């Protein structure tokens, strides 16, 4: 974690090989993460505080049709959360320095799961809008 403390304990001394530095994945994780801090606060507030104890089709559809920009919100929220999760898991996967074939398999599995989640999220929210 800190360069000075690398002699003590770090992911590296625990047998892991952390990816360091830049790259689009690094930037994407930070940009999507920042957005998710906002989006998840809205999501959890809407679900657990505003609709506390009475979450149902009626309360959800009434909220989504309240004239606010919920369509834009979900169009950003769902891809952001799927991307952030997949990119995060990919980073962890790479820490274990997988063999090329394992690495390719992991990439295919993550893409398949991500596309399935995007499709599921899209059709579910489409039904509520």
């Amino acid at each position: 974690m800190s360069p000075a403390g690398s002699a003590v304990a770090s992911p590296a001394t625990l047998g892991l090989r952390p990816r360091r530095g830049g790259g689009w994945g690094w930037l994407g994780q930070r940009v999507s993460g920042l957005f998710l801090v906002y989006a998840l606060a809205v999501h959890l507030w809407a679900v657990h505080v505003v609709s506390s104890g009475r979450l149902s089709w009626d309360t959800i559809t009434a909220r989504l049709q309240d004239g606010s920009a919920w369509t834009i919100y979900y169009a950003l929220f769902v891809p952001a959360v799927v991307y952030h999760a997949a990119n995060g898991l990919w980073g962890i996967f790479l820490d274990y320095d997988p063999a090329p074939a394992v690495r390719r398999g992991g990439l295919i599995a993550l893409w398949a799961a991500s596309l399935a989640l995007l499709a599921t999220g899209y059709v579910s929210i489409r039904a509520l809008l």
Partner: protein
Amino acid sequence: MSVQAGYLRRTLLPLLNTGTLAWLLHRVTGVALAIYLLPHFLSIHAARSGSQALDAELRGFATPLFAVAEWLLIGAVAFHALNGLRIIAVDLFDLAPRQKALFWAVLVVCAAVFVAASTLFVPRILAPVG
């Protein structure tokens, strides 16, 4: 058992400094939240089958056990979000010398969020809405 516990205490515990603890908690909560996405997306998929299917699905979550799980989920999201902000702040504003103090600040705010959320979830744990 006690020999193993002693071995773990002598070998693993010294490795657990502040940075490693932050890294480990960020990773554990991140993986847990990523896994949680699958059942979460699958359950809201009931919306496709109409209002009755979704309401039946949502009623299934109105149990004390799910209230405990949701409370823990809030804690995991709060930690991952706040520690993520800490990571970004340390990267962007050269705060590496203060990263430990920032980590304890993250834990304090995270605990505050968790305690505040208790007002929502403890009543549901003790007397679930039907």
